[in-house]
């Protein structure tokens, strides 16, 4: 019999995930029995309650500096997992609010959406606290399966179907690459446990063998697929465009947080052989920043624009990863790794608030007959819907990294980590491409404020409360944490 305290400790570690699963099950079962013909608003309400309870449990989990694990060292109980878990739950609350409005207005109001969202959230949280490559893969798959279906949730629309199939096929390839990488790394280090891998790598001397190199390469490809890094980004614009906007918002947030939390863990464990993978990450970061921003410039569809913008943001986050191995700079111990992890987490929060806010404005404007996603749909918005237009302008400024918004603080933190970690080249590219990005973000603002609408008035959406709440939450967070970034650190318990 395993020790009772061990079982209790294990259960405590996954308590937020259990809560999410139970909520998903209650919604799924209740929707086919108790409130089969009743008010469907109970589904998003229950989902939000579940996420909040999970949040409560996650915050209450005792904070251990590091090294605490559960389930025979396969799950880590550490700040990285807990803070990215908080970011994921925030994403979930915002996307449930958005979905509430969007699904109702588009006539897609089915309980399955919330069930899938909560289940894939469970996977993302597992991925964020995985201390073992197999658990990481498992979490990734649970996350992805939900997203594949959510992308095709508007199943009568061809675009949505296309997005779903495309995402599924390419995602399956990405998973296969990742799994192959895990197998090769296991072959080279005799372990799938990240701590164990790190210990093995730091104790062995000499250059890493070809098996390890191939394994690391495949891990980069697999995780790069999920995080939408150039040149593995091709699915992103199509899937973001085709999926229902609320699902796109969730996908943009949860998949990115899960993938980057996993990357921080994996590359943290691979630090002893950093010389072999750092050049690859540096090149990928530069290529991602440049191409993500360049391709976004020509987009006329706001969802595609935000997709390329999310690719560019993935590039900025890669800069943080490149600063991870700088444990010593010129022979002196450096705090660059801590800064990189902290900066990446802060940036993920900022990314979630501003990206979900921007998608939220699109959701806010969409109705049954009219799915707002083209730039032209936003023409003259400042006159028609001033509140939505100003919110959108605010999110665009934040995405562009203009102070005093959260986007600026996030970029600044990553920039600082990169400079501390002697990644000067990456810092320069990051600053230049951020300046380039301001062009296409401000073009949206220009269209909203200075161009006249030519269209007839669209039918009023049925419900707007959820999206309005989400936009307000996101906008408030963007400005408050932009002015007082330490507040976020105090709330989530992250930072130095």
């Amino acid at each position, binding site marked *: *019999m*395993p020790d009772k305290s061990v*079982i209790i400790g294990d259960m405590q570690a996954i308590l937020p995930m259990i809560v999410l699963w139970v909520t998903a*099950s209650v919604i*799924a*079962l209740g*929707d*086919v*029995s108790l409130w*089969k013909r009743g008010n469907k608003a109970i589904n998003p309400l229950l989902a939000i309650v579940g996420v909040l309870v999970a949040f409560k449990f996650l915050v209450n989990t005792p904070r251990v500096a590091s090294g605490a694990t559960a389930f025979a060292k396969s799950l880590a109980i550490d700040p990285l997992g807990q803070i990215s878990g908080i970011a994921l739950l925030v994403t979930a609350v915002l996307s449930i609010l958005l979905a509430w409005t969007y699904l109702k207005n588009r006539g897609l109001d089915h309980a399955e959406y919330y069930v899938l969202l909560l289940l894939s959230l469970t996977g993302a949280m597992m991925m964020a606290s995985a201390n073992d490559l197999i658990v990481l893969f498992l979490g990734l798959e649970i996350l992805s399966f939900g997203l594949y279906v959510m992308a095709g949730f508007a199943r009568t629309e061809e675009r949505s179907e296309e997005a779903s199939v495309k995402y599924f096929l390419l995602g399956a390839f990405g998973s296969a690459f990742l799994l192959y990488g895990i197998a090769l790394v296991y072959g080279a280090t005799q372990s799938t446990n990240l701590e164990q891998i790190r210990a093995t790598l730091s104790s062995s001397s000499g250059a890493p063998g070809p098996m390890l190199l191939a394994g690391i390469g495949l891990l980069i490809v697999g995780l790069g697929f999920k995080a939408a890094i150039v040149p593995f980004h091709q699915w992103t614009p199509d899937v973001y465009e085709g999926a229902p906007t609320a699902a796109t918002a969730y996908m943009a947030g949860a998949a990115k947080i899960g993938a980057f939390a996993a990357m921080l863990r994996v590359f943290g464990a691979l630090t002893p052989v950093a010389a072999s993978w750092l050049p690859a990450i540096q090149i990928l970061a530069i290529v991602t920043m440049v191409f993500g921003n360049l391709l976004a410039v020509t987009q006329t569809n706001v969802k595609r624009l935000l997709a390329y913008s999310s690719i560019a943001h993935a590039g900025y986050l890669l800069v943080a990863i490149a600063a991870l191995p700088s444990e010593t700079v010129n022979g002196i111990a450096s705090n660059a790794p801590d800064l990189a992890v902290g900066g990446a987490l802060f940036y993920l929060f900022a990314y979630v608030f501003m990206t979900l806010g921007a998608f939220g404005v699109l959701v806010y404007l969409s109705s049954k007959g009219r799915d707002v996603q083209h730039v032209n749909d936003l023409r003259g918005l400042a006159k028609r819907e001033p509140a939505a237009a100003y919110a959108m302008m605010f999110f665009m400024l934040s995405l562009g990294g203009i102070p005093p918004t959260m986007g600026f603080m996030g970029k600044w933190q990553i920039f600082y980590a990169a400079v501390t970690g002697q990644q000067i080249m990456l810092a320069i590219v990051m600053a230049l491409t951020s300046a380039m990005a301001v062009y296409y973000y401000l073009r949206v603002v220009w269209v909203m404020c200075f161009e006249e609408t030519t269209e007839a008035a669209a039918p009023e959406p049925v419900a707007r409360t959820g999206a309005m709440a989400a936009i307000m939450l996101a906008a408030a967070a963007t400005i408050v944490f932009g002015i007082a970034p330490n507040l976020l650190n105090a709330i989530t318990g992250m930072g130095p």
Partner: protein
Amino acid sequence: MLSGYLPMLVMLVLATVIAGSMVIGSFFLGPKKPSRFKSESYECGMTPVGSARERFPIKFYLIAMLFIIFDIETIFLYPWAVTFRDSVKSVKMFYLAEMGVFVLILFVGYFYILGKGALDWDEGREPEPVADPSIFKPRPPIRFGNEYSGPIQIASKSESGTPATSAAAGPGKRL
């Protein structure tokens, strides 16, 4: 080091020999009476040639898909049962609780599909009103490869290339 794989090699050789001898033996010994339906390529009972956009009953696929899921989950019970029987008494409660959780997850899925009506074949459900009446127009019937049960006549090459259909009068005789 590789000696542990010897049984596998033996298994491989045995499987190859047995399966190979069956195929070769039936090829040489079996009587050959080819017919049109026999020589058609086989694709899960569907007619292999024709438009891919035919209407076909989707219920079977749904049931089959759900069956596979629950089948695989049920198979997991067998190794568990063997381990459970042989395990020491102190861990039995723990094992039982773990299987309880597993079955609980299984049952959530089961009751969900039950409530969703995925296992209803036809009974008790009103047909849904159809918006587009054009789908009721006559359309070529759905054929399965084994529908025709009348006497089989082999098409002779001389008859202008079309298959001989004069003798066939069964209900499934449509090509």
